[in-house]
């Protein structure tokens, strides 16, 4: 009732405070009303001050970028596992994502943590000794050493689950090394052809996961004997007869 009609009564258009007190005198031109939100990138009136350069600045900058890269490679960086798709795709091999099983790659001190948090720790296989192939005289174990040498810069992880679905996804660094490996391989195929020796009875266990990841994508657990050689994509490894 009394207020119906929307403010058409007396005193319409009067403000509650005295305009002069805040400095807007009578008859002063007011700035135009704002009818839209302020622009996303308003034009800067003044150029920003240049960034600090010089030795210290550059060192800290390089350090920062290096730290960022380093943290991605540490085991604390947990990659979400890519959900399995119905068909295996070519790009799966080159996508970085975490392993599907629920183990962590580092070993925390479980005595300091609540018991409910305890999870399986994936066992790390020790780094292999690497032998520089061209410099060594040929030996009986040459063939295996060649295959070992192919894996020399890859980090070895032994899968505990032996299902075929379990794909080991390489990280990008290792993907580069894969590229290197493939080139190395091409060159060494010739070398291999010339030196062909008989197989000694026992073989060190090479995780075929690593071998395969260089060539294909699926893993086959290698159990003992020399018969289960996985054929390579590019060329056949000379068959090692027992």
């Amino acid at each position, binding site marked *: 009732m009394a207020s119906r009609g929307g403010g058409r009564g007396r005193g319409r258009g009067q403000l509650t405070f005295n305009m002069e007190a805040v400095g807007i005198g009578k008859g002063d031109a007011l700035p135009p009303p704002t009818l839209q939100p302020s622009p996303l990138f308003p034009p800067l009136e003044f150029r920003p001050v240049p960034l600090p350069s010089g030795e210290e600045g550059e*060192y*800290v900058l390089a350090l920062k970028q290096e730290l960022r890269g380093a943290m991605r490679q*540490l085991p604390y960086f947990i990659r979400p596992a890519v959900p399995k798709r119905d068909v295996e795709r070519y790009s799966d091999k080159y996508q970085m994502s975490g392993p599907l099983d629920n183990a962590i790659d580092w070993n925390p*001190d479980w*005595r300091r*943590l609540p018991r409910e948090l305890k999870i399986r720790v994936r066992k790390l296989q020790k780094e292999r000794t690497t032998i520089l192939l061209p410099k060594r005289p040929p030996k009986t174990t040459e063939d295996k050493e060649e295959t070992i040498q192919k894996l020399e810069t890859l980090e070895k992880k032994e899968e505990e689950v032996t299902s075929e679905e379990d794909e080991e996804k390489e990280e990008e660094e290792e993907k580069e090394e894969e*590229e290197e490996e493939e080139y190395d391989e091409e060159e060494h195929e010739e070398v291999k052809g010339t030196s062909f020796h008989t197989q000694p009875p026992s073989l060190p266990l090479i995780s075929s996961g690593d071998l395969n990841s260089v060539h294909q994508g699926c893993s086959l657990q290698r159990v003992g004997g020399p018969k289960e050689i996985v054929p390579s994509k590019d060329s056949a490894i000379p068959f090692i007869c027992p």
Partner: protein
Amino acid sequence: MEQPRGKTGWTEVTEPGPGRPGFGASDRRPRVAALRLLSTMTQAEIKLCSLLLQEHFGEIVEKIGVHLIRTGSQPLRVIAHDTGTSLDQVKKALCVLIQHNLVIYQVHKRGVVEYEAQCSRVLRMLRYPRYIYTAKTLYSDTGELIVEELLLNGKMTMSAVVKKVADRLTETMEDGKTMDYAEVSNTFVRLADTHFVQRCPFVPATENSDPGPPPPAPTLVINEKDMYLVPKLSLIGKGKRRRSSDEDATGEPKAKRPKHTADNKEPIPDDGIYWQANLDRFHQHFRDQGIVSAVANRMDQTSSEIVRTMLRMSEITTPSNAPFTQPLSSNEIFRSLPVGYNISKQVLDQYLTLLADDPLEFVGKSGDSGGGMYVINLHKALGSLATATLESVVQERFGSRCARIFRLVLQKKHLEQKQVEDFAMIPAKEAKDMLYKMLSENFISLQEIPKTPDHAPSRTFYLYTVNILSAARMLLHRCYKSIANLIERRQFETKENKRLLEKSQRVEAIIASMQATGAEEAQLQEIEEMITAPERQQLETLKRNVNKLDASEIQVDETIFLLESYIESTMKRQ
């Protein structure tokens, strides 16, 4: 367990009454939030934390971390339920977060363990390069690597740190040279003595007289005097290179392997004693650096050296959040001056008097015994630094005339519109315009002083004033937003050029491998040309932009440090 800094209010919560049946995951409802006053985290801070966690630890850890920051303390199953992630993934993420001191846990009644995130600690991740660089300036490369390993891994035992750092240093040395463990240990001990690294709270050794089942989570304790106590270790050894470059590795892998496994079975002498980087000590160092450089800018080199000496003398005696240092007599200062400085006692006294009379009040005189007792007013110094930051921001954003008005209002505390125009000697229209611009951005505020009890606007004074604390908070909030924007932009730029980056990385890898196997110059040329000239240009631009964005982040973080220190120091005094 240390209380998280900045946490306000009570955390008393109404527990579900005894009549409630059990507590499976389905029974858990969010606690009565009304009674819980969470440490107030703004949206900008949460966003920044999310970006940092994602960049450094991946998406899963980010999801869990942000959820904990938003909702406060929660048990494991509730986290899994609310975020929709599997229990195993949550466990993985929590392990990582606890390892890096970003999340703490507490055992509540009925054996429920609750996890709480420390938002301010997450924001410290921005400052890691600065900590590492500081360690480098103070303790050279060895110190740098020790702090880096501690920061990257959260916490480590001393033996693990020493071994890793020795290996890393050996890699960089010339062939044949190795880094001795003893040298690294020495640097570690020095870092502990000057409090740059400290021990983590540890599991107290309990006798087995406790009849009940073991608690669901250990309660970690540490007391003040144990924090910097280095265990007596005899670490003997040298750093090892990675085998691939070591030509002595003639290899029967079979022979080496049993020995290697035997090494791992040896008991670690300092098992259970973990060390972490002491960020507060680094902050104290940064604060001192800021004060010294401020004095150097305002006065001269000698005064700054005197102030630096005074700060150094009070490093261990004054707690880091004290408003001023312990009083130091002029005689003591004279004796402690660095060796190269040979100024006479009278000159020192003159400098001290000058410093004490300076209106900025960095140094104050607290007595006359011993040739004059002087203190450094830490709180006032931080206030001056924060004010200087505000002035500088106003100047760079709005121009020097605005800055003049701002400084004027700062100095006179409260001014009317007319007085501003008169004192600043700026025409009325422009002065008005500038005041309103600053008002709209909350650098300046209006204070009402009513003449009559009914607060009638026509009979009220409106005075412009600068409230430093609230302006500092506002600026801090803007800084958080800025860094979040910078990080997002950098990620965007990198993503846009992802294909090109991958291509260039592949090419580099190919070139490196070809060089290793001795390819000819012509072949290398050919491979290099796989990247065309416009692509090279694009890469150059990308690199320049990313560098600029990174450098900006570092710069903004320095401002954040100053403002946070000031706000913290002010809150402590209230």
